[in-house]
């Protein structure tokens, strides 16, 4: 009887192993903040708020800001 049992197929993939939260958290905190800082400089620096004086950053990424949907000026 055993030989009639259908072999496991690729149609039902096994559940991928979970990565423990403790292993993700340090990366998520450090790189999460770093990535958000990058997004801030592309999306909002020298718009509503400024870290640096002037308009150089704003003018340099001006077109990207409009086309990526951020409020510009």
């Amino acid at each position: 009887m055993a030989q009639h049992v259908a072999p496991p197929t690729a149609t039902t993939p096994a559940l991928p192993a979970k990565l423990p939260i403790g292993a993700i958290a340090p990366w998520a905190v450090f790189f999460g903040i770093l990535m958000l800082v990058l997004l801030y400089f592309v999306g909002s620096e020298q718009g509503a708020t400024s870290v640096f004086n002037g308009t150089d950053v704003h003018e340099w990424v001006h077109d990207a800001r409009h086309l990526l949907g951020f409020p510009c000026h």
Partner: protein
Amino acid sequence: MNSATVRNLLVRGMLAGLAAGVLALVVAYLLGEPYVDKAIAFEEAHSHEHEMEVVSRSLQSTAGLATGVLVYGVAFGGIAALAYAFALGRVGRFSPRATALLLSGCALLAVYVVPFLKYPANPPSVGNPDTIGRRTTLYFLMMLLSVLLAIAATILGKRLAPSLGTWWATVAAVAAFAVVIGLAFAFLPVINEVPQEFPATVLWRFRLSALAIQLTLWTGFGLVFGELAQRLLNPKPATAATARHPVAAPN
């Protein structure tokens, strides 16, 4: 070992984000830039004061655009990879590749499409400079709300799955998301700062191209990152090749 997996996923996410950013850049340059130029032409025709050019238009539309789009791609690639590390094996019975594409689709909706429906992208000359603070706050608030609600809806779906089954639990979670987002749309203030004679077709085309950029970015990211994650997490090219032989034998 697990920490190394997270690091490898993060690096691959940022690289996939860069690759997707290149694709999005092509779309932005070809589809979006013509309407940025048209909007600037409108602005110059209707404004009496001429601002001093800090960065030339030819730099803004090439190197400047590339900087912005690529940094955006890398940053969201990194964030999406970290979200992926959490989602893997927790959202359902999906392969690493399918999980990546599913996550990208949800990110496109939660990060961009939902906020866009309330506060759409605007070309130059649409938008009053005096209200930039308010518009920025509302846009990021909408984005944050949408992402948090998407996460909450995912958790709700997982909680309901044992009692309702996967299908109806998903339907209920998506419906709950739609209702709360609908309330947010209804109660958050409306922003309409389109100048009176601004050409409607330029505005429409500009917004469509902005949507196309995001669609390209997130689809590209899902496919590239999915492939990289699949190879990282399921490294068995040899078994896949040998598995074909026993299957072909019976019948």
